[in-house]
């Protein structure tokens, strides 16, 4: 069977377009309640998506100590949402994002083991080290932990988690009423870990999760992040908006995998993709323009400043993006920023144009056009090594998700690029990932 696309739905309160909530079709009041998320998840399941993805932020979105007026809500807690949705769906996988920098491994291991049990094997963990400096102030720290240290901590954190998930032998739960033996203590092996960041001893309270381990998801784009992804990632949420960049990124990660004893097929790369669809090219463009009209310049400039870590508030909106000044600010830019700077220089983009680009999709890939052309676009990326699938980011919910599921998915299915029904029940089945053997995620497997 030829390989097929994998699709994630990336939920975002009020939609991925920063002004999506202002669209007349959106019931903005509903965005924190169960019904909003249930509708999105059930639609994704109707579209046979692999997974439903929820991000995480540990600080409010603010500028200079004030919350941003024009769009201030990050994703609300991912475990809460995914556990709630697991009860109202049957096959859809769920990826929840949690930070290794501001949690304890024992608690997180138990939380994901529970989510995997509750969902009968549909859990994934998007492992992040938290990139925004503001989070530190909410956790009693004077400054955010330096990146290399964060990744060191993350590796140790994951080693403890996988060891805890492995701590029960598959036959440890005996439940033999006649002998009065519930669990066989001899088949439960406490973890004894003494490392640089953590020192702990104990076993899980739970049998091994149905999937062995929840699927390990990663989203790092920096060199440290790429290395980490090659070491532990089974699925990557990527951020390249251009095909050549996506191909280079995917190759870079996969090339590094043998170093960790891993085969490149055991990793699926899903770039973000924010489609705006219309029955004709013109209609799609009109929809895009309508949405862009709703963006207030202040919010775009704020998002751009945050992403570039460079204050653009006092620059003329209609002047060219000051790429020289930004590059001269001498920081380690993320690939997303580098990509945007290159594009701004090549195309002579203004501050306003760049702000709009970021506001529309947070500089993930976008597509505006007909469902047929979207399918072409996705097929091209897939066939030429740009991705293993996409994390779909609707501009607003539920309409834009419905359009994708009702109009784009059937075309992908007709072309044999996407499943017409689920073939397994677990997230690992959907993604074509093996049940992990016991061992360390960060060592050679």
């Amino acid at each position: 069977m030829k390989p097929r696309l994998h699709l994630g739905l990336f939920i975002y309160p009020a939609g991925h377009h920063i002004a999506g909530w202002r669209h007349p079709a959106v019931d903005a009041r509903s965005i924190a309640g169960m019904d909003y998320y249930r509708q999105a998840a059930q639609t994704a399941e109707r579209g046979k998506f692999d997974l439903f993805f929820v991000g995480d932020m540990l600080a409010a979105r603010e500028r200079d100590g004030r919350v941003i007026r024009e769009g201030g809500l990050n994703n609300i807690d991912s475990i809460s949402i995914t556990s709630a949705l697991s009860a109202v769906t049957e096959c859809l996988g769920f990826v929840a994002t949690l930070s290794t920098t501001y949690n304890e491994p024992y608690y997180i291991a138990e939380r994901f083991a529970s989510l995997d049990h509750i969902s009968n094997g549909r859990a994934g963990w998007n492992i992040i080290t938290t990139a925004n400096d503001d989070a530190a102030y909410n956790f009693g720290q004077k400054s955010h932990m330096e990146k290399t240290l964060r990744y060191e901590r993350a590796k140790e954190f994951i080693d403890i988690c996988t060891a805890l998930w492995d701590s029960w032998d598959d036959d440890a739960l005996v439940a033999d009423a006649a002998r009065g033996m519930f669990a066989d203590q001899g088949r439960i092996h406490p973890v004894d870990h003494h490392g640089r960041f953590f020192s702990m001893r104990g076993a899980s309270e739970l049998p091994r999760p149905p999937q062995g381990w929840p699927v390990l998801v990663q989203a790092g784009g920096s060199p440290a992040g790429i290395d980490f992804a090659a070491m532990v990632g089974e699925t990557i949420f990527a951020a390249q908006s251009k095909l050549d960049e996506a191909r280079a990124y995917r190759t870079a990660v996969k090339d590094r995998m043998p170093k960790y004893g891993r085969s490149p097929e055991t990793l699926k790369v899903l770039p973000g993709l924010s489609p705006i669809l219309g029955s004709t090219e013109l209609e799609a463009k009109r929809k895009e323009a309508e949405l862009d009209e709703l963006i207030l310049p202040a919010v775009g400039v704020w998002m751009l400043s945050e992403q570039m870590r460079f204050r653009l508030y006092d620059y003329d909106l209609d002047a060219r993006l000051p790429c020289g000044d930004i590059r001269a600010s001498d920081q380690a830019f993320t690939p997303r920023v580098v990509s945007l700077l290159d594009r701004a220089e090549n195309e002579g983009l203004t501050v306003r144009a760049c702000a709009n680009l970021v506001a529309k999709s947070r500089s993930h890939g976008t597509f505006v056009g007909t469902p047929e052309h979207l399918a072409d676009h996705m097929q091209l990326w897939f066939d030429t090594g740009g991705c293993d699938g996409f994390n779909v980011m609707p501009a607003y919910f539920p309409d834009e998700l419905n359009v994708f599921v009702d109009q784009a998915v059937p075309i992908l299915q007709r072309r044999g690029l996407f499943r017409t029904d689920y073939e397994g029940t677990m997230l690992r089945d959907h993604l074509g990932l093996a049940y992990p053997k016991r061992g360390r995620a960060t060592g050679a497997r």
Partner: protein
Amino acid sequence: MTLHLAVSLAGSGYHPAAWQVSPLPAKPSAAAIQAMARTAERGRLDAILLGVPVEGAPVSENGRVNTMQLDPLPLLGSLIGVTQQIGVGAAWTVDYTEPYNVARVFATLDHLSYGRTAWIVRMFETDALAPRIGRASGLDDLAAYCARAAEFVDVVKELWDSWEDEAFALDKESGMFVDPERVHPIHHVGRSFSVRGPLNVPRPPQGYPVLVQSDPATVIGRRLAAATADVVLTSSPSLPQAEARYQELHALAEEAGCLAHDLRILANMVFVLGETESVAQRRAAELDALVPQDAATPRFVGTPGQFAALMVTLHEQHICDGFNLLPAVLPHDLDLLVDAVLPLLQRHGAFRSEYAGNTLREHLGLSRPRSQYATGMVERTRP
């Protein structure tokens, strides 16, 4: 005032031998808990509580608790979409935990459930947790421990307050999603925590999710519980002790400046039911023969009629405001509770026949706290 009734659900039930007789699967099963949650809602119970620590928790010969310890938080999440009105509470310890994470998760759960959640504030358990985290227990200095725990809860409440109710403006016309004037960094700097805030989730629908705490063993612990909790779960081994504890907690609440009528005291009660008294006694004897239950655990054995009468009597005698009911064997004792005991209470007007409100605070008759930042402001109306 009518009774308030919560039910605790865990594994196969609250008798240590429950798993040997229960038809439920031994392995963790969300479907089983979800089905029982529907039963509890059919009975119009105030709340389902998950992860409630019980004195003399069932322990098997090999030292392992005989029920699966699913993390109560995702378990609570899994009940939100399969119930409509019943309250849902989950335990989360303050030990080795950050207040920002707790505030964020419970604010989220309260939004998802439209105001039906409770945080069961677990504390004093560092001895068991310390090795798994790898830090000192800190329980040797109880006063310092309680001071940290009190500060923890204060920070969580400040974070819930950091968005005024009206802050979530969503004014499409002007493009104002959030009103920055009504979102406040808390700038908390205390002995144990430094948290700048604000939270990144709007204020929970209930203002604060309901705070539940188990009755602490020490006076200093009880002073903390009376000052911070909306609901205290007691486990007194005798009636006179239960009555004394009820008075003491109310006195401590008043001492702390809280309104005593805003404190609900629910007595933990394991129950073994049978259609006749002899059936109930036989069931209890058979269970105890497998694994004896701790004699100190408050337990009822008898018929639905006797159980209903006992609850009414204890309530009238001001022993408690209601009960946290711990079914000995699931789902059997829960089914009997809902199908045979509750209708009797309802017939006598001692328990609700329909929910009067939509939030857990409304079920419990507790007021909705105002944001510390919004004195004199109009309360947001419920959806």
